[in-house]
């Protein structure tokens, strides 16, 4: 009856995933970063239960986790099925401190774009192939990645400016099939110039 278990064994066979023993309440598969895109595509399109919805992407830093072995970071993906209500599965990709790279799934799920930006913002994990990897919640001027365990919670930073959205807007126009002939006069030659107006100095 437990078909998520069956899907897990298919994943085990096809992609060599391992069960995450830390998730005692649901099904969580540890996936190698190289297979992530294929596994997600499989879950979305061809598994016996189709997991059409990406619910959440969470970064985890195991730096101070007691007796932790293995890579320092992990990215956890939660999926749920809409066509078969009540079925869920989680995937986990382990990320070592040296590489800090995970392939993007933003081409498969529209909301992965912002979720991956958030994980990049909070943990500094780079999603390769992401179309627009900027900070999401913190300011552009922010230095460091606040949800890492070695980032001091009481640290303060002086942040004074908004995100500079004009380049993003131009990119969005180009995605829609427009071609920018002449940039706004507000846009300097260097997109980072706007930070010079900040009162940080």
């Amino acid at each position, binding site marked *: 009856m437990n078909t998520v278990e069956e899907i897990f064994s298919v994943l085990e066979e096809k992609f060599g995933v391992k069960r995450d023993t830390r998730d005692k309440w649901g099904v969580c598969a540890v996936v190698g970063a190289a297979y992530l895109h294929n596994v997600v595509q499989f879950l979305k399109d061809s598994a016996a239960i189709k997991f059409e919805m990406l619910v959440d992407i969470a970064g985890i830093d195991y730096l101070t986790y*007691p007796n932790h072995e293995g890579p320092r970071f992990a990215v*956890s993906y939660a999926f749920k099925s809409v066509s078969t*209500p009540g079925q869920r599965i989680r995937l986990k990709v382990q990320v070592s401190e040296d590489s800090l790279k995970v392939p993007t799934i933003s081409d498969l799920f529209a909301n992965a774009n*912002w979720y991956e930006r958030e994980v990049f913002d909070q943990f500094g994990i780079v999603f390769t192939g992401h179309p627009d990897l900027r900070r999401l919640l913190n300011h552009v001027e922010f230095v460091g990645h606040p*949800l890492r365990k070695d980032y001091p919670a009481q640290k303060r930073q002086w942040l004074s400016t908004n995100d500079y959205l004009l380049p993003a807007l131009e990119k969005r126009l180009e995605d829609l099939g*427009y071609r*920018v002939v002449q940039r706004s006069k*507000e846009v300097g030659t260097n997109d980072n110039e706007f930070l010079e107006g900040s009162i940080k100095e």
Partner: protein
Amino acid sequence: MIVLDPNGEKLNLMPLNVGPSHPATHGCLRFLAAMDGETIVASVEEIGYLHRGFEKMVERGTWQQVLPYTDRLNYCSAIMNNIAFCRTVETMFGIELPERCKVLRVIVNELSRINDHFVCIAAAFQDLGGTTPFMYAFNPREEIMCIWEKLTGARLTNSYARIGGLYRDSYDGFENDVLAALDSTEKALKDLHACLDRNRIFLDRTVGIGKISAERAISYGWTGPCLRASGVASDLRKDEPYYDYETYDWEVVVGTQGDCNDRLQVRMAEIEESVKIVRQALKRLAPGPVDIVDPRIRVPAHKLAYQDMEGLIGRFKSVYEGIRVPEGEFYCGSECANGELGFTIVSDGSGHPYRIKVRPPCLTQFAAFHELVEGGQLADSMAVLSGLNIIAGELDR
């Protein structure tokens, strides 16, 4: 900026910044739109103006100290967030709650949902220039707020749920207050429908505006009333029932068009369903305990702390060291007013949360905002924004 459109025609677009402090961007939302006259050609959003570091702050305290923070996620229905968080931790513990606690949680959950939907509807009409519906919606909301005051001592950030129970049992006369609030809710709904259903101006502003297909909404991870407005009957209270929601007699409300009008109509119909649930729950409300008896999870009652050694130790340890949630990782989502509010919890078995990731329902909805407004008028973007009910508190955490 001068651009060539897909047909090769030259256009002169004006970048227009809206927000972060604009009366219609409830909370602090900002988007930059490329305008061709009154039409939005392209738009990009920015969030984070209300980012308070929820996930960093909760790592510093004990498990119980997370609760006041959850109030500040969706501050229009604070109790629902409390309950969603408690439910996640209770599932990790494997706690079976007492019957009265479950029924009380259902009642306050649904009253919060009514509250939240009323705020959304009222604000949406206010943004479109209608002041009267605002008053209609806020009268019953005020009654529910008064119930919150009596029940929890606070109006907005209630912190009513506790891991393994509730802050306290309901007060004398609670049932009558709730029934009175339900009556005025129904009256307000009638007034709202009379005011809006055939209102030409309102329909012109909302029908066909901000449409999204079911496939696209699912790809964006939409949940809750916004997804249901696109025609997907997805509701966690039915799909993954908790607190015996499956035993109540109610329907999942589904829209057809996925436009702004549907999103508001679905909310109004959901209020009706919530009223139905609360009426049934009130009949089930039998006397009994609201807390589980386990000093390791739920602090013993105050009077025990003064008379009983075990009670004193239990209180001391639970307050100073925190409860010890079983080691492991878990994701659990609950159906809140805006959709699925989920918590990914990593526990290392100590009294402090190792990592709590919030999955706010608003984030996915606001991520799709550009697709909803592109091609529409600037004024429509305000109708779309308020119809999505973006709460900056949970959007930015």
